[in-house]
């Protein structure tokens, strides 16, 4: 697993999930569909991503394709971050 994925997974597990739901979370699972995050949860997630990865997430980037699964976040961050990562 990539370092980015590991970090995001840990964040979601530590903050939003308990019990059996923790093992079930797949990298491709939509946070919204699986009711892991709601609108407030996404606001918290964005704050976390900005602080942890030092990126600024613009309004128009706040879309499901960028934020709604571990896979999507990783792909988004890889596009956004300098090539060194």
């Amino acid at each position, binding site marked *: 697993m990539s370092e980015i994925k590991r970090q995001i997974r840990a964040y979601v597990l530590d903050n939003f999930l308990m019990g059996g*739901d923790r093992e079930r979370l797949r990298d491709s699972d939509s946070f919204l569909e699986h009711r892991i995050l709601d609108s407030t949860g996404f606001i918290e997630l964005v704050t976390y991503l900005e602080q942890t990865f030092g990126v600024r997430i613009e*309004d128009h980037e706040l879309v499901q394709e960028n934020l709604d699964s571990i896979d999507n976040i990783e792909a988004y961050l890889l596009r956004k971050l300098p090539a060194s990562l």
Partner: protein
Amino acid sequence: MLLHDYLGDTVRRYPGNVALVAGQERVTYRDLDSRAHRLAAGLYSRGVRRGDRVAIYLDNGVAAVVAWYAALRVGAVFMLINPLTKRDKLAFVLNDARASVLITRQILLSEAIDAVRSAASVRFVIIAGEHARREPDERYISWAAAESDATIGDPGTIDLDLASIIYTSGSTGEPKGVMLTHLNMTTAATSVSTYLDLRTDDKIFCALQLSFDYGLYQVLLAVRLGATVVIEKSFAFPVTALEVMARERVTVLPGVPTMFALLTEVSSLSRFDLSPLRLITNTAAALSERQIRELRALFPQATLFSMYGLTECKRVTYLPPEQLDMRPTSVGRGMPNTEVWLVNDAGERLPNGQTGELVVRGSHVMRGYWEKPEATAERLRPGPYPGEVVLHSGDIFRTDAEGYLYFVARKDDIIKTRGEKVSPREVENTIHALDGVSEVAVTGVPDPILGQAIKAFIVLREGYQYAERDVIRYCLAHLENFMAPKVVEFVTRLPMTNTGKINKKALEGVVSGAGPRTI
């Protein structure tokens, strides 16, 4: 007139009008009607009869709408359950209402299976959408298997029969089922549609949960006229919502203050062409004067309606838009075919200019709370006319000289967060079940986006230690997400009143700056 007669009439008049837009799916009234009919025939063939309760545990989408019209067709009572509901509460609701059927989908099954295991009344479970996994037992059937092409007869429903039960938070912490008859719902739909002056060519954007009466009525109102509802699952991605609104050229935007706060924060808002938007409606909590100014500046072409209601009768008041400049914080006066007044503690009617509890009279007032005679008697009390009860709302208002209403406070301690009612007791009961919690008190604190945020004060037993997030995560696993506290504070003891109850007023004092360790 029955609630589903609106669908029958509209299908005859506008069969080709688009009823629902949900993601890539567009459903005409003809389609909606025939899908509802096929499911109704299937429900009937499996023994669902007049008066039975059909629980619909689905997220916003076409399936939920089809399911409730199917239930109505066989004379059953539909219950929309918020898809954020977790297994324990789902089981409670299924058992409380003794639901015969549960309609859900694959992604919600992990909660539903556990709930159904302890709900003996549920004879079968219909799974909407695609599903590949093996079902736990023969009670579980696919949507396709649940449909039938058979013709079914008239179940004999009259407008005094229940159409829906909507569960709402009660101050005791136990959800209560609000019983609504066909007459209640058609009365409310007619009044709301009249003052909003909705039209057949309207396109209503609905990101409100259909399990919330405000969301449900967007569809009921549209079906009554043959208009279109653009259904979104959530408002979590405001930019996506704006894209959909622009693409579908929506004309009506119903929302709650939290939604409008998220919307007005989008810096690229002006990029979206929302020129067809002609109506904005707000209820569930009052907009601030600043929010009203912002909305009017952003959408000068749209008329803004401030409204007030409660599940027990759907809607009570609206402020005529031309009054907005003069009385920006008022929620107006009684809507058509509704009578309202304020009473003091002795139940005496108060003249204009006074403060008291709002009382509502009309055919839209609920039948009562399902199998809760005491709670019902508290809300529905004898009115000025013999043989008639009126609704005591539990909300305190003041009136100005012309009788326009201004919300003051609730009589109980129910918290309003994101437009949702939350019973502090329900959250406290959940946190109490956490190992090592000795005492807990939950209260609402002001929040710029949520209206009120939920805050929990916890006293732990010796030897136990939790982080704030442990408690929040625990609550997210057991309660609807919006019920989880935003802030948790661990304290050494809770302030008590002279009578030995937790003093919530003193806790609010703590919130306003006295510091956590001083109590």
